[in-house]
Each structure stands twice: as C-alpha cells, then as structure tokens.
C-alpha cells in the first residue's frame, strides 16, 4: 500500500501523468486477465466436468486458463466440488501459500452452500475458510456455465484492480 501512495505522489507532480497511469492499469489488467493459472486441485465430484472443460470441445486454455502443478506460480484456486473438513484445511494452506494477487472461484453447489448434502456432519461451505470472488452454481454446472463464470472473473480483474494490490 505504501508503494502505491509514494508512486502516486511522485507521478502526480509530473504533468500528463493521469494518462500514463491509466495506460499502466490497462496493460496490467489486460495481461493478468488473459493468463489466470488455477492450481491443479479437485476436491470432489464435480471433477469430471472440470476435465471436460479443459478437454478438446470446450477448451478452457484458449482463454489462458491452464491448470498448473506448482503453487507458487499460480494465481487462482478453483474449488471444484464437495469440500469435507479434512480437505478444507488443505485449501486454506494452499490459499496462504499463493502470492498476491489471488482469486478464489467456487465451482458447484457444494462449496457455495453444501449442495445436496446440506445436513451432513462432514461437509462445509468454503467461504467459512477463504474469501470467495465468484460463485458458479449447478450440480454439476454445465461447461458453458464454468466458462461464463471465468469470464466474469476476467471482467472483475480488468475493472477492479490497481497496481497489483487487492482492494478490500
């Protein structure tokens, strides 16, 4: 936060800096929204639908979304499917290991609000553990719905982020 205010103060003293500022914002938002890399983690039964979305017919990679194995180089967690108590602790560790800026997408009815297992002793809704940006409902959601949800996330990234620090 301090870097942002210092840069702002130095830039504001230069005439014409408003245009440079919005150009940096534009390039930053454009490059970040077209390369969202989620962690390769599937938690529950919506995982076959996630595999079909990264398959050949509904190709997710043409939007820049590539599931990647190493946590430090990813910027998104897609929580796909039922989250039990044991798995929710792991999702929280992974969320803390990623670097800023980071986003969370809850795919399916179960991480949103427990889905068809609403009275089970072992299922949790993921927004008790990590803050969620986009909810995609469905059981399982259709591939078109998952792509629509990721495009909503791209719009949020383009509009709402300034120089890399999460504004909340």
């Amino acid at each position, binding site marked *: 936060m301090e870097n942002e205010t210092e840069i702002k103060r130095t830039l504001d003293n230069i005439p014409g800096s408003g245009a440079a500022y919005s150009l940096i914002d534009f390039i930053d938002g454009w490059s970040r929204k077209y390369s969202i890399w989620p*962690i*390769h*983690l*599937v*938690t*529950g*039964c*919506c*995982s*076959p*639908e996630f*595999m*079909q979305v*990264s*398959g*050949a*017919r509904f190709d997710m990679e043409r939007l820049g979304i590539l*599931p990647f*194995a190493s*946590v430090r180089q990813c910027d998104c967690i897609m929580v796909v499917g*039922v989250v*039990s108590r*044991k*798995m929710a602790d*792991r999702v929280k560790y*992974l969320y803390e290991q990623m670097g800023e800026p980071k986003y969370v997408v809850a795919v399916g009815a179960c991480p949103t609000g427990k889905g*068809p*297992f609403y*009275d*089970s*002793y*072992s*299922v949790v809704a993921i927004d008790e553990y990590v803050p969620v940006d986009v909810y995609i409902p469905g*059981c*399982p959601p*259709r591939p078109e719905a998952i792509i629509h949800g990721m495009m909503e996330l791209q719009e949020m990234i383009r509009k709402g982020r300034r120089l890399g620090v999460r504004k909340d």
Partner: protein
Amino acid sequence: MTEPRIESDLMRISWGPQHPMSGQTRILLDTDGEKVHRIIADLGFTHRGIEKVLENRTILGGIIPVDRMAMVDTANISIGYVTAAEKALGIEVPERAHWIRSLVCEMSRINSHLYAFGLQAEATGYFPAVFIWTTVDREVLLDLFEELTGARWSFNHFLPGGVHKDFPEGFNEKIIEAVHYLRNRFKDYWTAMVENPMFEMRCDDVAILEPKDALRLGATGPTLRGSGISIDMRDEEPYAAYADLDWEIITEDACDVMARTKVRFHEIGQSLNMMEQIAKEIPEGEIKTRFSPFARAPEGEHISRVENGRGEMSTHIWTNGTTNPYRVKILPPSLRNMYVFERLAELSHITVADIPVVINSIDPWYLDADR
C-alpha cells in the same frame, strides 16, 4: 490419522491431495533410494457421511445423494441402491425398463474405463494427448445421455419401479452410429497404448498380484480378473437384462499392469456389443410402475450386489415401517482395492517411478471409497 513411526533408514514422501496425478487422497511412501518399502493410504478427504444423510431422506429421495457418490460411473452405483429399495418395497419392474437400465449402465461403464485409460496414459508420462482424446470420446456418450435423460453426469434416471424417461424419436439409430464411431476409435487406442513398445516396457511384469493373494486380500473388479479369476456380478446374480444378452466375462492370466489394462479394453468391446444388441432388440412396453413417493416399506433387510466399473458394490438396506430407511450400508469396491494397493509394496518390487502406473492400473475412485 496418526501416522505409524518411520524406521530410521527410510525416507517418507508425502504424495498429497494437491498433485496432478494423485487424485483426492494422500499417500505416504517409505522409500530407500528408489525401492518403496511401505505404502500407507490416508483416505477421508472426500468423506461426506452419505450413510447418515440417507437416514434423513425418504426411500425415493435417497437416489439424489447416491447418484453423486461417484460421478464418473453414476448408473452402476445408482442401480445398486434402486434394486435394494425395490426389494424392500416389493415393487415389480417392467421388461422394457430393465433393457433401458442395461443400456445406461453399459454406457456408464465405457465412460469409466475411458477415464482409467486417460489417466494411465498420462501416468506413463508421455501421453497427455491420449487423455485429451478420451475427453472427446466421452462427449459422444455425454450427448447421448443428454438426449435421453436431460443431464450430462448426474442424471437421476433410475427410480424404484423403473426408469424416468423413455427413448426419444430416432434414438436407436443414434446409438448404433455412436457404437460404430467408438469401435473405430478403439483401434487407435489399441495401437497407441497396448502395441506400443514404450508402454510395454513400463507396464509388463510390474506389480504382479498372484491369484491366491488377490482372493485373500479382497481384490475385486478388473484387479481380480487381471489375475485370472472370473467373478463378475452380472453373471453371479443377474440383474436388469443381463440374463437375456449375449456377453462373456473377460480374464487375463499375466497378473501384471498390462493384463489389467487389457481386461478393461476387452470389457469396452463387450459393452459396445451389448449396446448394439439392446438398440436392435429392445421390447416395447411400459417404463415404470407407479408408487407413492412417501411409501412405507415393511420391516426387513435386503442386500443387492451389482458390478461397478471398479468392482463389486453391495448395498444393505434395513427398513422399519417408516418412510425413511433405518440404516443403509454401502460396501464400495475402491476401499477393497486400496487395501490391495497397500500390500503390493510387500508382494512385489515397486520403484518410486512405478507408483502412478500401478495405482492407475488398480483404478480407485476415492469418492466411492470415502462415501
């Protein structure tokens, strides 16, 4: 789970739930250089408490959590619960419904075996392309499911008393077209996977499971049939229309990873033959017997056994005269096969590089082991 103590000269690797090849589980490997001395499986990452949830639903309403138990192979789990519920309620099923159930079950079985091939090819390390081919071939089957039932994966098509929806216009011809397309594609898979010298080098004589060990440790499904023992629930206790169809049990004698892969290949061939037979010979008639959604089952207990893509699944249901079942006990195949996987490190020589290949030849799906 509290982990057992490690011996002083071994290294413990934790192969965790966040890994491209591990699935939703954590497996601990005690290694000494390249050789694996001990395997410990840490299950429970997808435990949803389905047995307790089913006590809080009516018998008809219980088909919804049961369908989501293993989404890759929905129909074969659903038919186990539905058959047990029909025995408890005492309902007869019309003939055409049995044939439609067999068709949907065989399509689910092909879906599940395709998933196993894709992961096997990716585990041997050089064929992510084959994994993407399998997603394209699954789309053919998912389009057929969508026309018949309305949903792609969790379709809730079976209910006690029959099936939910009948064939639309022209569906029989579409099934036969899909069967011809898939038969051509499977010639490509055979050449790419089984007749490939690199695949043979990685899979021949790896993780040998002798027949007497397979019986003693409780193996089931293709894991058991790859060791030469022919036990299949569709033959022991014929349910749906399997007594009227023309098929045979596939076994292989080599007992290694390649034998289990070949068993799955030939089972897909048998499933395609059965789909073609059903499309040509299905009888006309009613598709369901009506009963009240809040029907009360008389007191008693019933067991049903069906053949899943991974092995034998049993459902034991106790009823006591109310609308909800008193207790439902599900015996899944993947829990039995995971015990076999734990003991394989002591029965044969496995290196760390072999572990993804071996676990995908046993093909567990942790969602049905944890329920």
